[in-house]
Each structure stands twice: as C-alpha cells, then as structure tokens.
C-alpha cells in the first residue's frame, strides 16, 4: 500500500485512519472531536483533508477514514485552511472563550468574533458521551439533533449510574463540564446543570473526603478485567503515604540501631 501525504511517501498499515497515519509520520492535522482511544465520530469536521482521486479531489474527514489501498492525501491546502478557518469561526460563535479554539484560530487566522456569539459552552463533539460510555457509567447522552444537539442525562434527571470518574471533565475540549466535591458528595456539572451526584469516601484516618464510592464491578467487566479487585481503600492517598513513610522510617531506624549504629551519612 503506497500512501502519499503532502507529496511525500509515508509509512502506513492497511486499515489505519488518515489521522493515525499522519500522527505516526509527524504530519499535523487539527482535531477537536478525536482521541485515539475512542471510536471516531467525525463531529467537528476540522480534520477534513483532500483525497486525490485522479484529476479531482474529494474532501473526507481524516479521523474516521480508513486507508485500504494506495492513496494520495493533502492535509494543508489553501482550500482546507479556508475551510478550517470558517469552521473555527462558526464553532467560536457557540464557545467564544474556549482555549482550544483560540489556539486553532491563531494557526488558521480565524476571526473569533466574526459571527455573533451565543455562549452554549459546547461544540457538540460528543467526546464526553463517548468516553462515559466506555469508561464511566453511561450517563451522558447527545440528545436532539442538528444545531440543537445537547449533552444531557436520560430524561434530564440526575443519573444514578455515574461513577464520578471525571473522564468527561478531562476530555471536554472546551471545559464545559466540571466536578464539585462538596459535603461528602461529588457533583458532575454539565454546562451549569447538575448531571449526577456520587457519594465520596471518607478517610478513616484524617476524615477528609477522597475518591467516589462506586460499584466498580460493571466498569471492570467492561474493561475485560473482571478479576481485578475493586478499589477499596479506607484511608486517603495522603494518609497512606504518611503511614508508609512512617513505617519505612521505623524500619530504617530499627536496622541502623542493630547493624551499623554510626552510619548516618548514607541517604
């Protein structure tokens, strides 16, 4: 299989997507709705590239276009740059303050204020719903369609299946989701609306709240690691480090007292 990318032949394996091949060969293609660990959904369209077919070219989204035979691809033509510029300007009208868009705007010379902004804090990339399905408790859904798509829980209710993993918070390119730990509970807040509440674990040593109380069984099952014992600590990470340090120090002094009473230069 012979793949030409921007005029150079690049290494590729059959079935890899254009983005995968580009990343592997150090060719930059912007993406907003793609992470390697999740199925591509081709929601944002900024990764569009030109696929050369004879004398014509075709626009394809590179994140979900698998290469199956010889192909020539152009990733950075004037037409694509213009295309991306407009896309970013349109997305910015939904998310005027997103850092991810500012960076792209700089690269493509987009005017973030070109269209009147209506801050909806979401570019509808769908990453949160996809990661929640894979990692979390299948809490978030993309409801509605077209420009009215919104991220919500089923029936708009507080979800009972959230595991408080915060994957959705981590993955959102425009930081529309946040987590608040308060009064022994973790709240997942999607665009200002509470999506779920998860109880937090209380450290038996110092009393602070840490990690959520969750049923990890289904998650580990899904990850194909049903045999792994679920996380079940009763002390917080800080206390556990402190107690480990204390035990190490005790052992250190015991050993020194017995074996070499005056060897304290050694770290």
């Amino acid at each position, binding site marked *: 299989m012979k793949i030409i990318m921007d005029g150079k032949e690049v290494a590729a394996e059959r079935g890899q997507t254009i983005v995968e091949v580009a990343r592997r060969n150090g060719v930059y293609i912007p993406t907003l709705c793609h992470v390697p660990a999740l199925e591509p959904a081709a929601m944002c369209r900024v990764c569009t590239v030109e696929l050369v077919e004879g004398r014509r070219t075709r626009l394809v989204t590179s994140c979900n276009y698998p290469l199956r035979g010889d192909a020539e691809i152009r990733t950075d033509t004037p037409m694509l740059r213009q295309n991306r510029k407009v896309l970013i300007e349109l997305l910015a009208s939904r998310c005027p303050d997103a850092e991810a868009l500012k960076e792209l705007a700089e690269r493509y010379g987009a005017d973030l204020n070109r269209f009147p902004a209506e801050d909806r804090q979401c570019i509808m990339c769908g990453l949160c719903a996809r990661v929640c399905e894979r990692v979390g408790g*299948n*809490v*978030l859904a*993309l*409801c*509605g369609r077209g420009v009215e798509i919104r991220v919500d829980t*089923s*029936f*708009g209710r507080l979800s009972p299946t959230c595991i408080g993993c915060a994957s959705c918070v981590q993955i959102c390119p425009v930081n529309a989701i946040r987590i608040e730990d308060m009064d022994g509970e973790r709240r997942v807040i999607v665009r200002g609306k509470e999506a779920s509440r998860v109880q937090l674990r209380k450290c038996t040593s110092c009393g602070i709240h840490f990690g959520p109380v969750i049923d990890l069984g289904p998650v580990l099952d899904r990850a194909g690691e049903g045999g792994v014992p679920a996380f079940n600590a009763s002390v917080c990470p800080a206390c556990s480090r402190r107690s480990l340090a204390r035990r190490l120090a005790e052992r250190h002094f015991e050993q020194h007292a017995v074996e070499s009473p005056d060897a304290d230069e050694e770290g």
Partner: protein
Amino acid sequence: MPESEATCCQEPEVDFVVLDRIIRDEFGGRREAMIMMMQTIQRRYRYLPEPALYYLSQVLGVPITKIYEVATFYASFSLVPKGKHLLHVCTGTACHLKGSGGMVRHVAAKLGIAPGATTPDMKFTLETVNCLGACAVSPVVVFDDKYYPQATVGQLNEFIEKVNAE
C-alpha cells in the same frame, strides 16, 4: 420538540405484559428492531412513557442513554403525552406557499395552544411537519393518521368541532 420536563399527571399505567408482547413476541427481542418497537409503544400510549423505555433498555441490553438519544433525535417520537386526536399541518416549502402557515396560526388561536402543544383536556395535539412528500396536493394535513390533500380552513374547523363535541 417538547422535552423531558413535566410529564403529565394523567400518565397511563405502563403494562409490562403488553410491552413484552411488543418487544418479544412481535419483534423477537431483536435489537435491530428497537425503533420499530418504540414506534409500536408510542402508538399504544400516544407517547413514550419513561418506564417503558427503561424496560426496553433492560430487555434489549441497550443503555438507556442510547434509547433516549434515539427518542430525542426523531421528531416523530414524543416523551410527553399527546392528545387523543393528532393534527399535523405540513409547513414544508410547497405547503407553506399554499398558506399552511396561516392554517397553523388559525388552529393555534382557536385551541389556545402553541404548535407542538396539547390542549389541557388532552383531547387535541397540534403538530407541524416539514414535508409529507405530497407537495403536488399541498397544502396537506394529517388528522388522526388520515391524509387530507388540498386542505382548507373549513376542514380544520370541522375537525376541531368534531373533537370538541365528544
């Protein structure tokens, strides 16, 4: 479309035996038939009751989020109870040119509800659609699943009177 908010006080009891009949007997419990099951459930209750969707999710092993996504994607599914009688007025391009906008406004004013809403007595729901594929005989309305080509305001008045007389 109207969203998840307040479901109505007169929600019908969901009969799981009936659901089983639809899901298992009629469609063999196949996931691929999920949308058809949802259509059948909607036909039965005139909307998609929440417990019915949770049950469907359990039986098919499809996450409720996925079912909710489907239910909110298609304009023909409703998550809030619909009236006993359903009037669809086409507001597609052809019908619009033949004055369907005025017809919608007429009915809305007469019933005192917005398009998409249901009268408080749960008798009448007014909906608009974006083209019924019968543009040649526009304007088209559908009343209780029956198509009326070249519909007139007079006809709409008749429908409303009929419903009110019940």
